[in-house]
């Protein structure tokens, strides 16, 4: 029976992390080089963890499915990274960043974790600057900041519209330095297919070489997941095509609990869907909401004209425009948090005020900003985003308003971890987007980069030592033991089973079906009936998948379809768990909106009395329902209030 223990250190909130560090076990330098750590994924969390552990003296094995660690999807983050530096002298502090993050997450995250995140945020900026990350600067040579959704201060550091890229390259380069020194063994194009447990502890993985299709065994003293989020369960999302949940899902099936799977973030500003062949959605950074104004027409007939193509955005006079975010939320206006902005867009489009041919788009307009600041200023701030928009849509956003619509963007849920980022499997840690921890039910803009790097540079390299200190007498071991044998056999059998189906439907065809079920039933607005229906449909789809899937090619070979099929098998199971989790969460909070639970004005209505918990799911076996465990969230330092951005 699993017992959840969040292992929050004693002491006042602001002293917990330093108390922890003062009292934890450490590993001495001579022993560090005898200990191996596997890190899955090379995004911000994975690359920074691998580099930091290797600098300390541990031997690291680093894995990614891409051809180079530099391509992990953190690279696509655009807007920025938060830190409580208060360089703008606008009243920011660690407490304020902590408060905004808890509130932004709709009071469904742990106080101690979030406070630590805010605390180490400042060190991240120091570290990245020292690495040569070219952040934006003022003329005096100091760092520049911008503001982001859900905050009243300017605390976001940025490198044009490519902040994720620059931070990732900083971590990638730190990792490259350790590869050169021999402290990191790098395995690109090697995908994790199973977790190997020895005596109840995570001791290794089974990898599949993407090029040869061969299964390989890797052992270590601990395994760190940094495998990212599961947004691709929806097929269409802003995630990379290869981003998948399989590493985390294999760990779930081996006994790691999965926290809050129904908490996914829908980003309000993405380029709308164009048609059936669409393969992914492109994000337009939240930073655009600093200067862009979001609107739809006030009059139905104007909206219909836009939908038919007889009218253009510019034809609609100022007095007939409904700047609905500014109208509904005067205090935060266009900078309300993402979940609020997304739902407001959906509400207007569902009411028939959408502005493109599908009726599923709203305007993001820069006319006023260009008049106020001049085209040059806007170009300097957002040039690359405007260029990207024009290349994709063939519309020039300097002249006509952008069209945007919400899209799946980030998963707050993930592997359940305690304060040490340790999962319920001893020796298995989860970092960055792959864990559930810091964002509650909604993540604020520019906080994903912060959390990924906080975990990788400053948290995990400490907390993992508290575990490894007890492993110094465990020698390196060979992988020809029964546990590895068995784990490899499981993978081989699963792959053979997939190849043997020989049905008629391609992986993408089935994945699109899953995506539609998820978007309709487990998407931006959910209700009991829809969730029950979605769960039923997912189960049916699972049967179709295992009966009618078609994979060409061979098993021991480069086989992209087999690779995708294996991921989809896991997404289908995860989709069902998401529906179950959304069903038991009988409230609306953050990205999780249950239509049954809303205020008269249509705002999310939490149930703090009964629902202030983390839902952690335990796998109980094929065709059995998972068991639900609840970690109650205790708010001692913050008053739990209804979120108000008015």
């Amino acid at each position, binding site marked *: 029976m699993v017992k959840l223990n969040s292992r929050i250190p004693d002491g006042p909130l602001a002293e917990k992390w330093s108390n922890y560090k003062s009292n934890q076990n450490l590993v001495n330098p001579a022993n560090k080089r005898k200990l191996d750590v596997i890190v899955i994924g090379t995004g911000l969390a994975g690359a920074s963890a691998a580099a930091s552990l290797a600098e300390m003296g541990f031997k690291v094995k680093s894995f990614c499915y891409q051809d180079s660690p530099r391509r992990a999807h953190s690279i696509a983050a655009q807007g920025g990274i938060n830190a409580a530096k208060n360089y703008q002298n606008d009243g920011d502090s660690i407490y304020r960043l902590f408060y905004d993050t808890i509130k932004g997450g709709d009071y469904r995250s742990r106080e101690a974790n979030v406070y630590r995140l805010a605390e180490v945020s400042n060190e991240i900026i120091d570290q990245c600057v020292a690495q040569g990350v070219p952040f934006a600067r003022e003329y005096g040579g100091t760092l520049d900041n911008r503001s982001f959704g859900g905050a009243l201060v300017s605390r976001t550091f940025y490198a044009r519209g490519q902040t994720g890229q620059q931070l990732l390259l900083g971590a990638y380069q730190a990792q490259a330095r350790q590869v050169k020194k021999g402290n990191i063994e790098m395995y690109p194009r090697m995908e994790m297919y199973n977790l190997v447990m020895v005596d109840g502890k995570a001791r290794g993985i089974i990898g599949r070489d993407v090029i040869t299709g061969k299964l390989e065994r890797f052992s270590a003293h601990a395994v760190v997941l940094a495998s990212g989020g599961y947004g691709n369960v929806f097929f269409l999302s802003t995630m990379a095509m*290869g981003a998948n949940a399989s590493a985390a899902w294999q760990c779930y099936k081996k006994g790691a609990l999965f926290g809050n799977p129904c908490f996914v973030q829908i980003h309000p500003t993405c380029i709308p869907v164009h048609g059936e062949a*669409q393969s992914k959605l492109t994000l337009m950074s939240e930073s655009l909401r600093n200067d862009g104004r979001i609107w739809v027409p006030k009059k139905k007939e104007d909206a219909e004209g836009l939908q038919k193509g007889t009218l253009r955005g510019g034809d609609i006079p100022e007095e007939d425009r409904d700047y609905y975010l500014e109208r509904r939320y005067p205090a935060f206006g266009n900078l309300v948090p993402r979940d609020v902005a997304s739902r407001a867009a959906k509400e207007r489009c569902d009411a028939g005020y959408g502005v493109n041919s599908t009726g599923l788009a709203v305007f993001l307009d820069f006319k006023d900003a260009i008049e106020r600041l001049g085209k040059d200023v806007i170009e300097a701030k957002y040039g690359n985003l405007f260029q990207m928009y024009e290349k994709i849509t063939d519309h020039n956003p300097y002249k006509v308003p952008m069209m945007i619509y919400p899209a799946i963007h980030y998963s707050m849920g993930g592997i359940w971890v305690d304060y040490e980022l340790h999962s319920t499997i001893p020796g298995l840690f989860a970092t960055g987007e792959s864990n559930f921890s810091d964002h509650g039910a909604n993540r604020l803009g520019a906080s994903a980069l912060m959390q990924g790097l906080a975990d990788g540079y400053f948290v995990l390299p400490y907390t993992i030592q508290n575990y490894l200190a007890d492993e110094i007498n465990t020698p390196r071991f060979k992988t020809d033991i029964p546990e590895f044998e068995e784990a490899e056999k499981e993978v081989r059998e699963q792959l053979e089973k997939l190849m043997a189906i020989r049905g008629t439907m391609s992986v993408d065809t089935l994945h699109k079906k899953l995506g539609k079920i998820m978007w309709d039933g487990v998407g931006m607005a959910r209700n009991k009936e829809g969730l029950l229906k979605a769960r039923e449909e997912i189960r049916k789809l699972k049967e179709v998948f295992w009966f009618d899937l078609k994979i060409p090619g061979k098993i021991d070979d480069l086989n992209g379809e087999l690779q995708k099929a294996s991921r989809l098998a896991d997404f289908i199971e995860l989709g069902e768990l998401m529906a179950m989790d959304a069903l038991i969460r009988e409230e609306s909070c953050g990205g999780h909106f249950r239509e049954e639970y809303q205020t008269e004005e249509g705002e999310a209505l939490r149930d703090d009395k009964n629902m202030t918990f983390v839902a952690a799911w335990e796998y109980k076996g094929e065709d059995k329902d998972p068991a639900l465990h609840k970690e109650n969230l205790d708010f001692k330092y913050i008053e739990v209030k209804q979120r108000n951005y008015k």
Partner: protein
Amino acid sequence: MNLKLKIWRQKDPNTRGKFVNYRLRDISADSSFLEMLDVLNEELISKGEEPVVYDHDCREGICGACGLYINGRPHGPDSLITVCQLHMRKFKDGDTIVIEPWRARAFPIIRDLMVNRNAFDALIQEGGYVSVNTGSAPDANAILVKKEHADLSMDAAACIGCGACVAACKNASAMLFVGAKISQLALLPQGKIESNRRVMDMVAKMDELGFGNCTNTGACEAECPKGITLTNIARLNREYYKATF
């Protein structure tokens, strides 16, 4: 629109490759180039044939995974974008499109349109970083950087490591890729400390890995999807001469 495709198919590095012709019907002009290839692959799968293999991931022009020769040009006919951002509206109904992998000794073909670009990682490992351990950094605003230098550094740092510069170069030189990294770090006070060693090591590695020399043709700059300029190669040369004395 209806299209004819001539696509390079090659089983593995040791087997001879060849162009294979395909026809596609009813492709939407709003589709991206890779979505058009998705449609082709779905057709191949339904016929029980093996799909065309190519690298791609983010599909928003930033990860650098995709890279194809399209009608003889790296990343295709549009400028300042990667293949994944190229849209079919740049082609006409009835067009024949020729698709090939990057061709350079340092980037061996793996299959079809997929190549091995590990050489780029090896170059960065040779010194494309600042040697600073986690936790040892001073306060971020203690290091002042002139805005002009930060901006130039960012221009260079925008490189996505796709390899189009190498593919475009008649000598398969990696000077633009290396020049971009050298420039980014040489322009910042943090990177200056190691600048001599960095440039010597990275240039030596470039030769070792089989990249050719630079003859100032400028094809790399013309085809770079991120607009990295030749100035960065000039800066590399300047850093190199500085380091020799």
